[in-house]
């Protein structure tokens, strides 16, 4: 029996490593191939030429900054809209949870092209609005809704929201004070996860921005991809790097805000 257990123990690490290696190969080989392709500046010659080329394109900077701004706007609108909604449903209207859950997955069912066409139809009589980039953020809020809702829902489920709310109110806190001082600090991780996913959705979104004729980062990538293969590979690697940079920046910012809150509480 002991021998059988011993052999099972010896075998387990091998299979763990095997599947980990398989996952790494699946994820890293395309990335490595793209990186190698993007560094190719001639037959058997490698350099950063394509990166330099991309970074000097004004359209790259404009499209990336537009997408980044839209990502920030989308994150803010999503959190302002969804945190109180999900909180209220958990604290006082748990029976509505299945309904909200169903609404949250609608963006998976309705294709982005339908959303874009619908928006064009709805706002075509309002030219200043249809040409306003901020409009995209509202469309992205809908696109990111499944991720926002699920992250926040999971965060709310991980703490006893109803009891914490009752406890805060029993000592005299208003709804606003309860949400701000008691609930939000417990949702930091959930809000961060929601923000990460939203940024990823916004930076990669192509259909809506393309149909509404906005030059977002994804649209620019597509344009480069159709004409310059090496530059497109360099752009793909850059976008990968910049997306991670944006997420790390958000993470550090949230830690700093969390630290400030903790310090403020002790004052």
């Amino acid at each position, binding site marked *: 029996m002991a021998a059988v257990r011993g052999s099972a123990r010896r075998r387990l690490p091998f299979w763990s490593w095997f599947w980990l290696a398989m996952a790494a190969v699946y994820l890293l080989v395309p990335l490595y191939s793209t990186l190698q392709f993007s560094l190719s500046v001639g037959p058997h010659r490698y350099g950063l030429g394509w990166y330099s080329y991309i970074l000097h394109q004004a359209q790259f900077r404009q499209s990336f900054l537009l997408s980044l701004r839209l990502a920030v706007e989308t994150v803010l609108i999503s959190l302002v809209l969804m945190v109180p909604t999900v909180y209220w449903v958990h604290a006082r209207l748990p029976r509505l949870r299945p309904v909200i859950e169903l609404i949250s997955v609608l963006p998976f069912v309705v294709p982005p092209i339908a959303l874009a066409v619908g928006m064009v139809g709805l706002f075509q009589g309002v030219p200043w609005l249809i040409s306003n980039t901020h409009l995209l953020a509202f469309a992205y809020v809908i696109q990111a809704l499944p991720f926002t809702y699920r992250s926040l829902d999971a965060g709310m489920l991980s703490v006893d929201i109803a009891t914490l709310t009752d406890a805060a109110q029993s*000592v005299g806190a208003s709804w606003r004070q309860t949400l701000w001082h008691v609930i939000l600090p417990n949702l930091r991780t959930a809000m961060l996860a929601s923000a990460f996913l939203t940024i990823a959705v916004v930076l990669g979104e192509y259909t809506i921005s393309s149909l509404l004729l906005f030059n977002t980062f994804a649209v620019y990538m597509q344009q480069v991809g159709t004409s310059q293969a090496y530059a497109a590979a360099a752009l793909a690697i850059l976008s990968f790097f910049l997306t991670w940079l944006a997420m790390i920046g958000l993470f550090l910012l949230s830690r700093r805000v969390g630290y400030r809150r903790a310090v403020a509480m002790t004052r």
Partner: protein
Amino acid sequence: MASLEIQKLRKRFGAVAAVESLDLCVGSGELVSLLGPSGCGKTTVLRILAGFERPDHGDVRLDGKRINDVPANRRNMGMVFQAYSLFPTMTARQNVEFGLRVRGVAKRVRGDKATEVLSLVRLQDHADRYPHQLSGGQQQRVALARALAFEPQVLLLDEPLSALDAKVRVEVRQEIRAIQSRLGITTVYVTHDQEEAFSISDQVAIMAAGQVQQIGTPAEIYRAPCNLFVAEFIGTVNRLEGTVADQDNVAAGPNGTKVKIPGHGWPTGAAVAVLIRPEAVKINTDTHNGALGHGLTGQITTHMFLGAITRVAIDTSLGPLMADVPSEQALMLALDSPVGVQIEPGGTRLMAP
């Protein structure tokens, strides 16, 4: 100190009546426990008092003033919950200070107050710990300190000890009672544990089906239950069906064995339930002088050791009876041995079946 009054309270959840026409008075500085089985509506009453639920009908009055429409955060009632309810991202001190902080109390004042109430629950040395660094008993003591820090008019406790182990439960309940007595704060305590309710309460309200069945001191309720539910819910009781034979006797059990209950006051021929507390059943093993032959006899069937006393089951002509005997005496009562049984009339009551 404040008095609390509930008048004709009714609350339904869909078709289920949680509270039905309930009246209750809690005097200034009194500790009243709501005691009842699960689902009897006791927590609903407490949540209505706290302002978390609105009654369908009836009034809640604090010092005579109707507070039905006052929101929970303006009622000035501290509450300790059944579930651990400390704010996880705040230390014990920050939790305790929170009620003062939302009231805009100055930092130094609330710091002094937090130290004072944490000392009251003997946790001043744990002030900077987070809830996950505290044991269950310590968390509930911090919750008590948090509920007291802003000097509420009323303290509400919703089964605060149910998540704790037996030894800690006894310690914390003694602490709650001591603090409540020292501060003289009007308190409503919800529990399903009768030992807990009886040990700390001035008055106990027994609840069933959304109504108060009886309210009184623990001794009154134990000695003079007002109905069958209360009698059977409180403590342990032997219940026999019988018929009144005459003014001093009741014929009970399958063979109509006479049980002496002098001056019971029920009419002859009336069907009654005979309720006998186990401590009123006395066992006699002395077979000399024919003691066994003069009264009820039976055979010991089981022993249940409960510490200082042992609960002994006896098979008698009245049916099975339980008797509480000192554990030292129980050691001498062998299983299947014949014993004489005497029922003390003082521990016996008759009720409508």
